[in-house]
C-alpha cells in the first residue's frame, strides 16, 4: 500500500512539474477563439457576399417590432408627417413637444443607422483590399461595393432627415482616438449620401436574377440619388442639384408603374416592376421572435416588419392607439379616386396601405409584407418637381404628375383622377399640384415627414400645430427646432465633440 501511494505520488509530482515546465512554451497562453476572426475570414467571395447581406440585415432594425409597440422605430418614419395621426396621447412623434434626447426610439434608430454604416464601411474596405483571385464571379466585387455604398448612402440620407447634424464617419474606427468625431453642419450628411449613391450607381448591376431579387440595382441608386439631390436642392436652393436629379432619375430604365396601385403594398407582389428599393421583410425559419433582434440568431431572430399600427391585427398594438390617416388626407382625394380603396377607409380613417393585403408572421405580431422605400411613382413626382424647380418645361412637369394620375384612373376606368392641365404655367400652382399628389400617392408610406421638412426649409410651406392635422390637441410644433430631432443622449452624453441641435 505504502509503495503504491509512494509511486503514485511521485508520478503526480513528475506530472505537475513537467507540465509546468512545458508551460514555459508560449503556446499555452496563446489561445485563439473557436471561430473565424477578421484575419482568417474574407478568403472566398461567399464570405464577401455574406458580409454584404449583413449590411442589408441591419435594415430590419429600422422597421421591426423591437419587443414592444412603443419601441418600434417604424413610428418615426410613419408618424411625424401630416398624413398619419394617432389617438395615443403623449406620442412624441405626433406632438413633438416631448421629443427628447433620451427618447428610446430615437436612440435606437440613431445607433442602428450607424451600425449599418459601420458594416458598409467594413465591406468597402475589404473589397478595396481584396487579393486577386478571391473573387471568381465577374463584376461581383463591384456589385458588393455598390451595395455597400448604396446602403451607407441610405443611412446618411435618413440621418440627415431625422437628425441633420450627427457625425460623419466614412472610415473604419480602429483606435480609441476616433470614438468622438464632431457633429456636422448643413447638408454634410446628405452630401455624403449623394456621393455614395453616385458611386453606387456606377457599380451596381441593372438587375439581379430572381433568386437575388431584393438586392439593390443601378436603378435603386439612381432613384435614391435623384431623390437626395432634390432634397438637397430644397434645403440649399441650388438649381444645379435639380438638374443633377433629372439626369440621375433619367438613367432609371425598365421601371414602370404597376397596373394595380394596391400591389405596391401587398405581401404577394413584392419586388415588382414599380419597386426600386424595398426592405425585404420575412420570417426566420424557426420562428419570428419579435422580441429578439435580427442579430440574435438565424433561427428565431426577427426578419419581420411591424405594421400593426395600420393593420390593428394579431397581437397588434397591445393597448397603444393604432394610426389613422388625417382628415387632410381624406380631403385631399377626389371621392372617386380609385387609390382610396387601397389607402384608407374614408369613414373612420383606418389605414389600408400594407394592411389590406398583409400577412402576419407566426409571431402573430409582425408581418412579412415588404416596406417599399422607393417606388417609381415617387420618382416621377420627384422628376416633376426637379423639372419645375430647375426652370424646365412646365408641361413636362405636369406630364410626370399625370402619369401617376393616369395609372390611378385606369384602375377605376373612370374620369377621376383627371389629368392636370398641361398648359398651366404658374409654378406655384404646379408645385402645389406636386405636393398634393405626393400626399395622395404616398400617404402613409413614411415619406411625408421628410417631404414637409424639406419644403419647410425651402420656405414654400409653413409648419405649425394646425398643419399636422392631428387627432391630438396637444401638438406643439416649434420651428425650426423640431426640423431636426435631438441628437440622442447616448451620443451626447459620451461624445463631447457633438453639439446638441438647437432648442433641445
Amino acid at each position, binding site marked *: 500500500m505504502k509503495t503504491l501511494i509512494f509511486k503514485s505520488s511521485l508520478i503526480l509530482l513528475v506530472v505537475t512539474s513537467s*507540465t509546468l515546465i512545458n508551460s514555459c512554451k508560449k503556446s499555452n*497562453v496563446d489561445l485563439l477563439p473557436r*471561430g473565424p476572426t477578421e484575419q482568417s475570414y474574407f478568403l472566398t467571395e461567399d464570405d464577401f457576399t*455574406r458580409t454584404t447581406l449583413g449590411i442589408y440585415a441591419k435594415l430590419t432594425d429600422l422597421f421591426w417590432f423591437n419587443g414592444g409597440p412603443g419601441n418600434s422605430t417604424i413610428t418615426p418614419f410613419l408618424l411625424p408627417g401630416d398624413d398619419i395621426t394617432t389617438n395615443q396621447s403623449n406620442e412624441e412623434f405626433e406632438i413633438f413637444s416631448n421629443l427628447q434626447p433620451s427618447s428610446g426610439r430615437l436612440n435606437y434608430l440613431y445607433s442602428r443607422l450607424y451600425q449599418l454604416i459601420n458594416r458598409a464601411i467594413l465591406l468597402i474596405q475589404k473589397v478595396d483590399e481584396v487579393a486577386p483571385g478571391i473573387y471568381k464571379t465577374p463584376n461581383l466585387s463591384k456589385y458588393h461595393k455598390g451595395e455597400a455604398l448604396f446602403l451607407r448612402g441610405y443611412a446618411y440620407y435618413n440621418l440627415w432627415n431625422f437628425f441633420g447634424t450627427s457625425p460623419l464617419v466614412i472610415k473604419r474606427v480602429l483606435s480609441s482616438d476616433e470614438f468622438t468625431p464632431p457633429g456636422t453642419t448643413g447638408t454634410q450628411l446628405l452630401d455624403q449620401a449623394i456621393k455614395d449613391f453616385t458611386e453606387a450607381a456606377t457599380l451596381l448591376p441593372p438587375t439581379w436574377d430572381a433568386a437575388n431579387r431584393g438586392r439593390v440595382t443601378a436603378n435603386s441608386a439612381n432613384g435614391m440619388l435623384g431623390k437626395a439631390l432634390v432634397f438637397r436642392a430644397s434645403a440649399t436652393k441650388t438649381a444645379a442639384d435639380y438638374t443633377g436629379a433629372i439626369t440621375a432619375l433619367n438613367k432609371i430604365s425598365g421601371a414602370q408603374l404597376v397596373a394595380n396601385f394596391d400591389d405596391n403594398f401587398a405581401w404577394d407582389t413584392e419586388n415588382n416592376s414599380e419597386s426600386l428599393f424595398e426592405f*425585404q421583410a420575412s420570417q426566420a425559419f424557426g420562428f419570428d421572435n419579435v422580441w429578439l433582434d435580427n*442579430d440574435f440568431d438565424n433561427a428565431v431572430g426577427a426578419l419581420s416588419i411591424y405594421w400593426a399600427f395600420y393593420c390593428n391585427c*394579431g397581437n397588434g398594438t397591445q393597448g397603444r392607439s393604432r394610426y389613422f390617416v388625417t382628415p387632410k388626407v381624406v380631403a385631399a382625394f377626389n371621392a372617386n379616386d380609385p387609390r382610396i380603396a387601397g389607402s384608407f377607409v374614408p369613414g373612420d380613417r383606418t389605414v389600408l396601405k400594407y394592411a389590406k393585403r398583409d400577412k402576419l408572421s407566426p409571431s402573430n405580431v409582425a408581418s412579412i409584407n415588404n416596406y417599399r422605400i422607393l417606388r417609381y411613382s415617387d420618382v416621377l413626382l420627384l422628376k416633376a418637381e426637379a423639372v419645375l424647380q430647375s426652370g424646365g418645361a412646365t408641361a413636362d412637369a405636369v406630364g410626370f404628375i399625370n402619369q401617376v394620375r393616369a395609372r390611378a384612373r385606369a384602375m377605376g376606368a373612370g374620369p377621376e383622377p383627371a389629368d392636370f392641365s398641361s398648359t398651366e404655367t404658374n409654378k406655384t400652382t404646379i408645385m402645389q399640384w406636386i405636393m398634393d399628389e405626393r400626399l395622395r400617392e404616398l400617404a402613409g408610406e413614411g415619406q411625408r415627414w421628410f417631404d414637409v421638412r424639406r419644403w419647410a426649409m425651402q420656405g414654400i410651406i409653413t409648419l405649425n400645430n394646425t398643419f399636422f392635422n392631428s387627432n391630438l390637441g396637444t401638438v406643439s410644433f416649434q420651428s425650426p427646432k423640431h426640423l431636426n430631432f435631438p441628437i440622442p443622449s447616448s451620443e451626447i452624453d459620451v461624445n463631447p465633440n457633438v453639439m446638441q441641435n438647437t432648442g433641445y
Partner: protein
Amino acid sequence: MQYSKQKDINYVYIILSKIKNFFTNCNKKLTQKRLFMKMSQNSRQHPCRLKFLLVLLISAFANTFSFAQTNVTVSGKVSDPDTKMPLPGVSVTVRGKATIGVITDEKGNYAITVPAGAVLVFSYLSNAPEEIVVSKSGIKNVLLSSTAKSMDEVVVIGFGSRKKKDVTGAISTVTSKDIEKITALSPELALQGRTAGVFVSSGGGDPQARATVRIRGVNTFGNAEPLYVIDGVPLYEGGSGVNGGGIGDIRSPINIFSMINPQDIESISVLKDASSAAIYGVRASNGVILITTKRGKSERPKVEIASSFGIQNIKKTFSVLNTQQYYAQVKEAYNANPDANTTFEQKFGPRYNAANPLYGGNNATSGWQNELLNKDAVMQDVNVRLSGGNAAATSYYLGAGYAKQESPLKANNLTRYSVVANIDSRIGKIISTGITMRLVQQSALVNTASDLPTMASSIPFQPIFSSTDPTGFAPVASGSFVPNPNFDPSLLDAGPAFNFAPGDPRLLWGDNSRFNPFAFHALTDNRYDLLRALGNAYLQIEPIPGLRLRGSLGIDWYNNERKSWTDLEQWRFSQTAGNPYANQNGQAKGTYGERGSTTTNINKEVTLNYNHTFFGNHNIDILLGGSDQFGKWVVSDLSGRVNFTDPLYRGIGNQPPFTQGFAGVLQEDALLGYFGRLSYKFKDKYYVDVSLRQDESSKLAPGFKKDKFPSFAVAWRLSAEKFFPKTTFINDLKLRGGWGRLGNVNSAGYYKFLSGVNFTPDYPLGSGNGNGTGTQFQATRLPDFANTTLTWEKLRTISAGFDAQLFNNHVSFTAEYYDKTTFDIIQSVSLPPNTGIQNNADLNIAQVKNSGIELQLGYNNKLGPVNFNVSGNFTTVKNRVVKLNRGTPIGGEGGRIEEGYSMFYLWGYQVGGIFQSQAEIDAWRAVYADGNIGQNRTNATAGYTYKPGDMYFRDVYGNPKNSKERFNTTPDSIVNNNDRTFLGKTIPGFYYGFNLGADYKGFDISVFFQGVGDVQKYNGVRSGLEGMGGLANQLSTTLNRWTTSNPSKTIPRAVFNDPASTNRFSSRYVENASYFRLRNLQIGYTLPKSLLSKTGVVQNFRLYVSGVNLFTITEWTGLDPETDGVPLTRQFLFGINATF
C-alpha cells in the same frame, strides 16, 4: 496536547477510583472554558477526554511507584503539534502554587522541580492551557495545542499558513465555529458582517441567489469578484461576474458556491491587501478568499452529526390597491389625460366599462402576491462526518451531507447531496501526500414564473383560478385555430400547422391582462441538475528539515444541465400569446430543451519552501513556485417539439426543423504564473515579507500578456522589545504596513484584441410573384472593436495598522487604514453610437481609489460562572473615480461613473415639489420651463401645460457653453438633461457587524447583528408602481395621491401616460438603503458530560434553536433593503450537533 493511543485498558479500572474526583472537577471547569478555547467540535479531542487519557497515562507510569509526597524534577520540550516548531516563552506553573514557575527557553525547553503529584499548567499567551500531573522525575515533552486564540491562531495565507502574530498583511479569518452557524447553503454568507473589510450582500431569499462579495470597496467596473481558492485550487467559473444577457443566461442563476458545503469548511481566510494577496498575482486584485476544508486529525475516530431543520417566510408583501381603488385610480388618471375622441370605456374595453356585463369592477381582489408565497418554506440540512487518523501515518476526513432548501416563493427549491474525502498520508519521514475529493450533486427547481413586484402590479380584478379550466387556472387569452393552408411539413420552412383564427388571440381581461404565473408553474418545468467534482492531490517531500518541495494537481469540473419544458397550452396564460403551432408539426404537445454547460478547471502547481532559523534569532521562509491554470467552459443547447406531455417521454429527436440547438466552447483561459516570497523575521520582533509574481494570461494581446506584481510588507512587534513595559494592559502590540501591486484580467472579455466574425444576422432574398418570404440567407457581421493594446488592470494597495492584545488578553483589537488605487481599469464600454460598433469594447479607461479604515475588536471575559464574549468589526469605504478616459462619464442614471464621484452613483433630476395651485404654476413658469415636456421660456403655451398636482423638477445647471463643457454651473431656468445631478451613492460608506455570546452551565447564546450605512438605492419597484401612468396596479401609497381635496406634497396627481414626466429618474424614488439587522440569534444547550459519559458513546451533544433575520431597522420602503425581488426571509431553525 496529544497522546498516543491508550493500549492497556485494564489501567482504567485500577486508576479510576483515584482520579474520579479530579475528573469530575475537570468536567465542570472545561465546560465553562468552551468559548475561550475556540475549539471547533471536530478539530480536537474533547479536552476532558484528553484529560481522562492523560490521567490514565500518567497513572500508568505512576502505578509502579508510591504516591509519596517527594519533590521531582521534570524537564522537556514544548512544541506546536502542527508546525512541530518549539514554543519559547511558555509559562509552566503548578496549579494552586503561584510562586513556582518557569518559562520555556528559545528552544522550547523547560525544567522544573515540583512536589510529586503536582499538576503542571502549561500556558502560552492566550492559548488554552494544558495540564499534566507529574509524579516522578523525568522528561515530559509537551505538544501545546494550537487551538489557540488570537495572536497564536494559525492563519491560512497564500501557499501556507502562519501564526497571526507573524502576519504582516491584511487578513481576516472566519472559522468553522461561525461557519457552522450560517443557515445558507453557500459559504460566502459566513463572511457577512463577520469580517472587517468584507462587504457581502446576500442575493435575497432565493436559495439559488448569488451573494455579492466586495473586499475593501469596489475596485473596478468590470469583474469585481474575488478569487476563491479551495484547498489550493483557484476556482474558475464560466461567465464569472456576468448576470443576465446571453452569457448570464447560460451561466444560469444557480450560485455555484452553494456546491461547497459550508459544514465541510475549517476556515475561510480573506486576503485583503497586496502584501497578502500578491502571491496570487493577476487574479488577486479583488481580494482572495482561501477556503480550507476540514482534514483528519491525529486522534481516535470521531463521528459528528450536525443536523438542522427550519422554516422560512417572507416578512411582508407590497400593499397594493384593491379592485375598487384600482378602477377609481385608472379612471381618474385617464380622465386627466384622455386620448382624443376616446372615452375611458372605449379606450380600455368592456372590462373597464361599468355598463358592460364583463365589467371587472365588481370582481373580488385577487391576492396575486399572497398566492406566490411558499409559506413555511422548508430548510433542512444533515451532515455526517468521520475523521481520525495518525499524524505520523494516515489521517482522514470523510463527510456526507444532504441539504434541501425551499424558496419562500413557489416552484423553486434546491437539493444538495455532497460527499467529501480528505486523506493525508505520511510515508516515512520525508514524504507526505494527500488527496481531497469533493463530489456534489445538486438539483434546483427554478420554475418561479414571477416575483413579488410583478405580482404587485398585476391587475386586481383578474382572477387567478378557474373552476372550468382543465388546469384549474384562469386563462389570460383565448383563441381558436384554423389550419394553415400553406403548411408543408416536407419543407425546411414548413410554417405553422395552424394559425390563429382571424381576430384571435384575444386577451380576456382587457389590454393590460397579465400573465398567470400559477398556470405557468403547472405548465412549465425548468430545472437544473449540477454535478461537481473538485479534487486536489499533492505530494510533498521534505528531504531536510525546513525544505519542502510540493507538487499538486487540482481539478474542478462541474456540469450544469438545464431542462426546460413548456406545454403547448401555455399560450392561454400569456399576455403576449404567440402561435403555439409555429414551427411544429401540429401534433406536438410542447417544447422541451436541454442545455448543458460544463466548466473544467485544471490547476498544476509546484512550490519549493525553505524555512530555517540561523544564528538563533534569524528566521527565513522562502517560497518559490509556479502555477499553470487552464479553464474551459463548454455549452450545448438543444430544444425540440415533443409529441407527449408525459415527463417520462421528454427527449429531443432529430426532426429538423423542429429541433434546434448549438454547441461549442464559450470560454477558454490559460494562466501561467511564477512566484516567489521571502519572509524574514528577527526574534519575533521584526518582520519583512517580499513577494513577486509574474503572470501571463491568454486574454491579452501578444506583447501585453505578461506583467509582474511585487509586494513588500514590514511588521514590528513592539511588545517583544525589551524596553516595552511588561504590563497587563498591553499584552501584545504589533505595527504593520505594506505596499504592493496586484493585477486583474477577469474584467477583460475573451479575445478582445481580435475582431471576430459573427454569423447571426440574416436577410431574405427572392420574394415576389406570390412568394412573400423569399429565401433566408445567413449573413455575417464583424461586431467588435479589436483593442490590440489592452493591458492589465493594476491595483496598488497601501495599508498600515496595528494588532493589539490588551487587558490580560481579554481584548484583541486591530485597526487598519487602507488605500487602494486601481489603474487602467478595463471597462467593457458601449462605444459612442456614431462608431457603429455593436459589441462593447474592452478599454483601459479609468482610475479608481478606495480608501478607509477597518476596526476589529474582540473582548471576552468571565463574570462569575458566565463566560461571555463580544466581537465586532467596522469598515468604512470611500470610493472615488479619479480619472476617466478623456474625462468622459460613462453609465446611465442608475449607475453613473464620473470623475470625482463614487462609482455607480445615482444620477438624475431633483424633485422641486408638487404644484398646489395655479398660482404656484404661474409663478414657476414665469421663471422656468421644463424642456423635457416641450416647454420653453418664451412661449407659455408651448409643450405640456401644468395643472395643479403635477410634480416639477429643479433647475440645477445650465446648458454647456462650448463642446468642452458638459453643463454650465449657472442655472439657465430651463429644466433639461443638463440638470441631472448626484442623487445618491450605491456603494455603502460603511458596514459593520457584531456578535455577542455567552454561556452558562451548558447553555449558550449568540446574537449576531449586521448592518450597512451611508448608502442609497433607487426604488425601482416604487417607480413602477407609484407612477399612475398606466393600467398596472399601484401601491396603496398612491391613495395619498394629490387631489384637490388631498394636497399631497409627495405623490403627484394621477395622470395617464404621465405627460408631465413625473416618473423620470429623479430623487422621487431615491431612498436610504441603510439597514441594521439582527442576523442570527442562537440559543443552545449542551448536555452535561456527566450524563453523556453514562452512554459511553456520545461525547458531546448540543441542541439549539436559531432565529435568522428577526428584525431589520431601515428607512427603505420596499420589502428589503438588500433586494425586493425575493426578499430575505425570517427563519426559525432547530438543530443538533452530536459527536460520537
